[in-house]
């Protein structure tokens, strides 16, 4: 296995880094503090052709490879994890079902403006009573002539209230359980579709997480993605890809925390010398770097595998599981190295520590990742 980035990937990485430094870094602390959605960053993502990064040019995408996309999520998250998830929820969650299984008409209507960035996407699977057990949802979609009528509530939806296009899952045939779940596209401002409460969160505070409420919401029949009853399969396959995005987010946060820890260790003087000269600090740094590189190999490997178009559920699960745990370890040690300063909001590691925590939860908790990995071993 060889993780030498291609010339093109290296250039994308450099571009992503420059983008993140210029547009994301300067407002990262502020959007964390205020919980403001970084609209201006989205405008720049649009101007720089990033909103349809991995989709074909014929739909207005940039047709970059999957690893390049992962590098972008990593670089953004390295300075601002909120922007990292806003972006990856749009690309790898919301757009994926439309692109993979949507009709040509749906692609023209939604994928094209989403690639151009005219419309931002969200992905809604989770319900108050159906988290890990996504199959137990109660949202319904009833066919009525030329329309489906949606009823029910989704919760914890990234970009909820901000997004223009929602890829949602609802039961077309509740009696069939999982086999009755279907996927739909719903536009913002459709009558009967309301945004419920915004969550006040521990981390990734610049990314909005909201409740979606459907009360007799009528959508055209054509907004069914793929076939009725295939929704669960679509959701799970989409989450496989999304998990690599979250893994890259964890990786970026961890790298950001390590960068800060190294800088601080060299600058902070105690007992007359920079604390970096103390072996206790050096050992922490060594462990952090090792965890980080191990995570990076798993994440890039998952992206590479996905890019090759072969099955990658296990690779994605391992990458997310490991990267999330590495990020928690690394951010925790980064705070330790900062001492009291690490606990103060003026220092970035305080934010990184709060931000990393979600990566072990959404798009499948670490327990779920272990289930996927074990499942593939025991098949």
């Amino acid at each position, binding site marked *: 296995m060889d993780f030498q980035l291609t*010339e*093109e990937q*290296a*250039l*994308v990485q*450099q*571009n992503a880094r*420059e*983008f993140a430094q*210029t547009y994301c870094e300067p407002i990262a602390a502020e959007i964390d503090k205020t919980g403001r959605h970084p609209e201006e960053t989205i405008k720049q993502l649009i*101007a*720089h*052709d*990033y909103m349809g*990064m991995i989709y074909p040019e014929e739909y207005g995408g*940039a*047709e*970059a490879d999957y690893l390049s996309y992962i590098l972008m999520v990593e670089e953004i998250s390295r300075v601002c994890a909120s922007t990292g998830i806003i972006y990856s929820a749009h690309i790898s969650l919301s757009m994926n079902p439309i692109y993979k299984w949507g009709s040509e008409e749906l692609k023209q209507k939604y994928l094209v403006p989403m690639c151009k960035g005219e419309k931002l996407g969200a992905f809604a699977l989770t319900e108050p009573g159906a988290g890990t057990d996504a199959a137990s949802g109660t949202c319904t979609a009833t066919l009525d002539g030329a329309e489906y009528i949606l009823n029910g509530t989704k919760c914890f939806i990234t970009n909820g209230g901000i997004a223009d296009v929602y890829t949602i899952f609802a039961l077309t045939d509740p009696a069939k359980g999982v086999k009755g779940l279907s996927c739909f596209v719903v536009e913002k401002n459709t009558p009967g579709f309301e945004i419920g409460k915004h969550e006040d969160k521990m981390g990734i505070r610049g990314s909005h997480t909201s409740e979606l409420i459907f009360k007799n919401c009528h959508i055209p029949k054509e907004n069914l993605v793929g076939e009725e009853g295939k929704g669960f399969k679509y959701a799970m396959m989409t989450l496989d890809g999304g998990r690599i995005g979250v893994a890259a987010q964890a990786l970026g946060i961890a790298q950001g925390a390590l960068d800060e820890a190294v800088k601080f260790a060299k600058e902070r003087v105690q007992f007359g010398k920079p604390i970096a000269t103390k072996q206790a600090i050096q050992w922490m740094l060594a462990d952090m770097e090792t965890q980080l590189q191990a995570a990076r190999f798993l994440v890039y490997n998952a992206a590479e595998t996905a890019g090759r178009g072969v099955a990658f559920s296990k690779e994605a699960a391992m990458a997310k599981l490991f990267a999330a745990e590495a990020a928690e370890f690394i951010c925790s040690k980064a705070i330790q190295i900062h001492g009291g300063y690490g606990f103060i909001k003026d220092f970035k590691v305080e934010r990184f520590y709060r931000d990393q925590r979600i990566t072990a939860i959404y798009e499948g908790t670490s327990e779920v990742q272990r289930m996927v990995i074990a499942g593939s071993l025991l098949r």
Partner: protein
Amino acid sequence: MKIIVCYKWVPDEQDIKIAADLKVDMSMAKWKISEYDKNAIEEAALQAENNAAEVTCLTFGTSKAKQSLKDALSRGPEKAYWVNDAKAENTDGFVTANILAAAIKKVGIPDLIFFGEGSEDSYGQQVGPRVAALLDIPALTFVTKTAVKDDAITTTRSIGNCTEDVTASFPAVVCMLPEINKPRIPSLKQVLKASKKPVEEIKLADLGLSDAELTVKNKVKSIQGFVMNRKNKLYQDGSSAEKVKALVSDLAKEGLA
């Protein structure tokens, strides 16, 4: 209209360390296109957009500079020329200008040749006007504004205590000041397109330059860290008001307050 924009691949000075013995340690340095040259590339890209200029770029560098080509191409130029030679490791304005001028002659003298105001590493501030002199064409330096009309370029130069508008008919060399524009971050599509743009490697041997033309003139005896000799007194005790009092009293001792 044809433009060649020249750039240099330099170490990022943020990563340059000075060792205890004042030796300059570049082992940790990432390399990049000189920031000043990014202004020149951006100005060429603007000419391409606004005046349909055909832009190519040219660099003289070691084999390491290969990494820079796609980067440069992502910023606008349609083709990159690269004079690849280990001599670039130890060069000066004299040799660099001889090589660039010869390379420009070889690929054809364009209407305009753009440079930054100096390179970020050695900041010799001479290669642009030297190339102009070697090609026997005008050099418009320290330029803050360009406007092309017919076969001439009008520039505004900002030269210390005055500005002046200088017009030169093609061909001409133009060296930009950083305030002329804000180099944009290339878009993803530009980045991806860059990998498909052509690159032409030029061998030094093909430029027909003599040994004398390729031998540096002034001999570098040493490059050493700059030693800052300052008092470095930080007021750490007491309230802010007390710190300020102590500072003012020190300034008074220096006859400055």
